[in-house]
């Protein structure tokens, strides 16, 4: 593990190895100490003229007093713009397939529209409803699969106007 931390600092670990190493850092005290001291050695070798005092403990204590920051994860999408391209391509493909299939199912609809002429022989059906069954149907209309107002049917009341009664 210690050798992995050394290589991680130098940016010389592969993704999976680096991920497992990073997962331990900050949780394992010994590993975290190694991280700190290796960085101190590097900074000292690069700029021995001035080494500022260690502020990590003080800053850490102050950070503990701060509310925890939380932010939505955007990096996956941002780092991989392919996701956008693949999503767009998949959407376009799906739209294309659906359009093509609808044309294959009924190609005449689009090419030769026909005028639907009313047959004079057809007449509206007339049927006598029993008053009791009509009320029953109205009362249970909410259970009908054809209604668009499920649950609201019980509040609907049928009102009829009989002009001849006057």
């Amino acid at each position, binding site marked *: 593990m210690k050798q992995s931390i050394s290589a991680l600092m130098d940016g010389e670990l592969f993704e999976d190895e680096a991920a497992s190493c990073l997962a331990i850092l900050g949780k394992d005290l010994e590993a975290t100490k190694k991280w700190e001291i290796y960085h101190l050695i590097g900074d000292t070798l690069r700029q021995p003229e001035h080494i*500022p005092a260690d502020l990590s403990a003080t800053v850490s204590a102050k950070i503990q007093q701060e509310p925890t920051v939380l*932010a939505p994860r955007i990096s996956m999408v941002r780092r991989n713009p392919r996701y956008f391209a693949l999503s767009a391509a998949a959407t376009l493909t799906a739209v294309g397939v659906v359009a093509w299939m609808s044309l294959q199912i009924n190609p005449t609809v689009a090419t030769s529209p026909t005028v639907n002429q009313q047959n004079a022989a057809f007449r509206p059906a007339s049927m006598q409803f029993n008053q009791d069954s009509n009320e029953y149907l109205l009362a249970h209309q909410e259970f009908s699969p054809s209604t668009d107002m499920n649950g609201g049917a019980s509040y609907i009341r049928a009102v009829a106007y009989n002009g001849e009664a006057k």
Partner: protein
Amino acid sequence: MSDKEIDQQLVERVQRGDKAAFDLLVSKYQRRLGRLISRFVRDPAEAEDVTQDAFIKAYRALPGFRGESAFYTWLYRIGINTAKNYLLANKRRAPTSTPFDAEESESFEEASLLREVNTPENELMSKQVVDVVQKSLLALPEDLRTALTLREIEGLSYEEIASAMNCPVGTVRSRIFRAREAVAANLRPLLDTSKDNRW
């Protein structure tokens, strides 16, 4: 995994509520940021305070960090702004109006000036740390010393070091690790016994 990617992974952990991950970023960048801020705020005690403030501000602003730039570049801007605001609040002028970027600031030479304003205690500790590190480096076997020097001072990759030293990359990795461990072993007693554990 590159340095930028490692930082991004740590930033994402902080953004998911892991405060310990922010401590790792502080450990990594505190000295670079401290040196940077010391160029604006000359008093070492004030520079320390401003550096701490900059880290706190960075922590608070982290939910808005989207990784368009490297983490240190972003932190660098926060550090500069915090230092300038501090000077403004104290009616003092920044020592230079020259705009440095994050890379230029790394090679800026003001060491003698910084030494003059450092406190005696910090100065002593700083000297001891440098002394132990340099003596430990000199005491290393030559192959370990060369590998660590090429990595830390010259900034070469493992592959470049392997080519320069005519050995496999795995050997370079092992040599650098062993060199760090040897230096760390000498440094540990000094760090553990330091007053108020600030090193």
